């Protein structure tokens, strides 16, 4: 059936020209240099793909080009070297074929099989964020990267490959991480970019028979650590929902506790022994608790209304590039302190 279809197409191509020339037999002519390139090169499932035909020897842009997808003519136009289509689901297979009739009357064909797969790289920084924080931990200089890839491959019988069957090749900026790659190596814990740089982390996944391939990549960027300050309320705890910002903070009593949170630093908790806290009130150095240096208790003496700057700097004792600082103004008003809940 396929033979009759191609023969019919060739006949149509032949009679579409007035000059009668001898049609060359249909054959796959890699030796002529016909090639089909896909963009993206490794298409995933349900993805729009652009196929481009080219030849090193023939000027295909003057030829009549017919594109077929699974034996169905999808496009027929002179000089149209590009063809857009959408891949199928994971595990499906599509046959893409191109027929070319040159101005000289020669006919060439080339076909490729497309088996879409799906793969995505996930990554995050191995850094500190407070409990119940809804955002992602980001990478800061000196920390590590946690990464894993989720890939969906199916064999010819439609059965999914498990993670342990697939072959993973990890790369940083194109340099293969041989010791971290291999069969079933779908996760990665590795050093992040140096200083404040970035790199491309990529992974190529192949089936054991090498017939299916997928790739996924991500740019790993460096984030400067941040210190965010919160009031530590004696009843409800740290007010993570509402940070103390650069706007004046009004204290409701003569004593408040301020909690400093070192976002994205290479520590396990906010009072990690590798963190050095430097607090200052009105430029004068003060100290938090020895056990909880991330917390500063501010007690006002006297009845006067007071506005005073409070600052904190956090330094990592080992990863010297991990530093953060913050300053805010705290306002003590007599009327607030004399309220029902003031001291």
């Amino acid at each position, binding site marked *: 059936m396929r033979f009759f279809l191609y023969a019919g197409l060739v006949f149509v191509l032949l009679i579409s020209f007035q000059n009668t020339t001898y049609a060359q037999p249909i054959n796959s002519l890699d030796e002529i240099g016909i090639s089909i390139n896909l963009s993206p090169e490794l298409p*995933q499932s*349900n993805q729009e793909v652009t196929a481009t035909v080219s030849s090193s020897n023939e000027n295909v842009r003057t030829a009549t080009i017919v594109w077929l997808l699974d034996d169905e003519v999808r496009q027929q136009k002179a000089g149209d070297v590009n063809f857009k289509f959408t891949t199928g689901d994971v595990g499906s297979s599509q046959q893409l074929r191109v027929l070319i009739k040159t101005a000289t009357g020669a006919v060439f064909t080339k076909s490729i099989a497309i088996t879409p797969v*799906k793969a*995505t790289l*996930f*990554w*995050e920084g191995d850094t500190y*964020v407070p*409990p*119940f*924080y*809804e*955002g*992602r*931990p*980001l990478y800061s200089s000196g920390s590590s990267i*946690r*990464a*894993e890839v*989720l890939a*969906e491959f199916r064999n010819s019988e439609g059965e*999914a490959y498990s993670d342990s069957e697939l072959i993973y090749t990890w790369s940083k900026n194109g340099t293969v991480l041989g010791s971290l790659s291999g069969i079933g190596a779908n*996760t*990665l*814990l590795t050093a992040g970019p140096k200083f404040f740089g970035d790199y491309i982390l990529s992974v190529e996944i192949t089936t054991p028979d090498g017939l299916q391939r997928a790739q996924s990549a*991500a740019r790993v*960027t460096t984030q400067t650590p*941040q210190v*965010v300050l*919160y009031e530590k309320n004696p*009843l*409800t*705890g740290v*007010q*993570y*929902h*509402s*940070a103390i*910002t650069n706007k004046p903070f009004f204290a409701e009593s003569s004593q408040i506790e301020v909690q400093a949170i070192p*976002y994205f630093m290479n520590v396990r*908790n906010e*009072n990690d022994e590798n963190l050095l806290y430097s607090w200052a009130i009105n430029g004068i150095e003060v100290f938090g608790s020895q056990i909880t240096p991330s917390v500063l208790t501010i007690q006002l003496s006297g009845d006067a209304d007071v506005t005073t700057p409070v600052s904190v700097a956090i330094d990592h004792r080992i990863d010297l590039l991990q530093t953060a600082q913050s300053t805010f103004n705290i306002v003590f008003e007599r009327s607030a302190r004399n309220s*029902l809940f003031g001291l």
Partner: protein
Amino acid sequence: MKRKQLYIGISVLIIILIIALLGWAIFIGQQQQRLQQETEDLGYFDSTLSTPTRDREGGLFNGAFGNILNNNDNVSKSAPDEVVVAKPALRQLYNLPTAGFIKKRSNAIRFVDKATGHVFERDLPDGTTTRIDQTTVPQVQEVLFVNDGDGVLRRYIGEDGSLITIYSNLEDTETQNASLPTQISEITVSPDENEVFFSQQTLQGSTFYLSSPDGTEKKEISASTLRGWNIDWQNDVLLVSQKASSDLPGSAYLINASTGTKTLVLQQLKGLSAALSPDGKNILYNYNGDGGIPILAVKNINSGKTTILDIAGFTEKCVWSPNGVSFFCALPNEFPEGEYPDEWYQGRVLFSDSLFEIRTDTKQIAHIISPQAEYGVSLDITNISVNTDGNALFFINKIDQTLWSITLPEEVEGVVEEESGDEEGI
């Protein structure tokens, strides 16, 4: 003669004074009437009302909206023969920080006081509030209810900084509280509220488990080298998505609770945050568009069709309507300069929202209420949920963590003004 003129003059003066006094009394009366009218229409009073009062209609914790309970109160006062427009009713249900709540199948709402961990139940029609459980769990950070509020999971930070989750059976006070594993970073309840799905942080990363609400019958589903995951469970569909950050692409997948098989559904979208529709067939998500502003979109899981809604908003501020076609969203009135969602998550930015209903099929958007403009109250709406009738919404205001509700009015039929030829009102 002179005396007679004097008497006449004094009389005229007295009459003038009387007229002036009368006029002043009428003016003051009008002012008071207007003030009373405005006050009734507002429905919201100063939230610094710190002393609960039993004098208000509706019980101890009746917020200042408590008197807006009847449909009549939702209707603006108007003269006869005018078109009557019903307005949504905004109500503060609890004026202290709340850790979580559930709208029960009966017309009541259960919630947990953040400071003490005590469980309260408020009857919505009459506003009476009773304490259901007085187990003290100080500084509760998060709460989930199960079994229609008959069980509660209270989550807090231990003295050593560990994440602690305890389960209490509120119907059987003799049963001791049960402790689930520590270091549970995310937990969600099954649609039938009889199971929980959670991720537990480990040295290697995190592990996903299914268990009963009290932590028994625990079954490992999957493991990951990453720790920053969000999870959602609707119908029989489990969605796992990366925690969001403004400039970083995120992805999400479905996980089969029986086999652990994963299926990618969303890939490499900056600032991605996703949530399932109640039927588990659609995903509402937001990603960062140009300028780093989150844009809402909907994807059908089966067909893969994606509808970009071109509306700036966060998935966390939205809830699907029971009709499955539309959803309610609290959309920020403005986005101050910043990185989203990170700065919002960190509490460095707080929003003032307006509430809308958005249809996914027609992309029509209907305004419901703007608390800041209409009542002068700023609400950064989170933990939003809707009742089964789709006519009442409940949420926590992130600014002060108080508990609120918005009751949508029933359509009210107005009277036609024959003279003016106005259309019949709704």
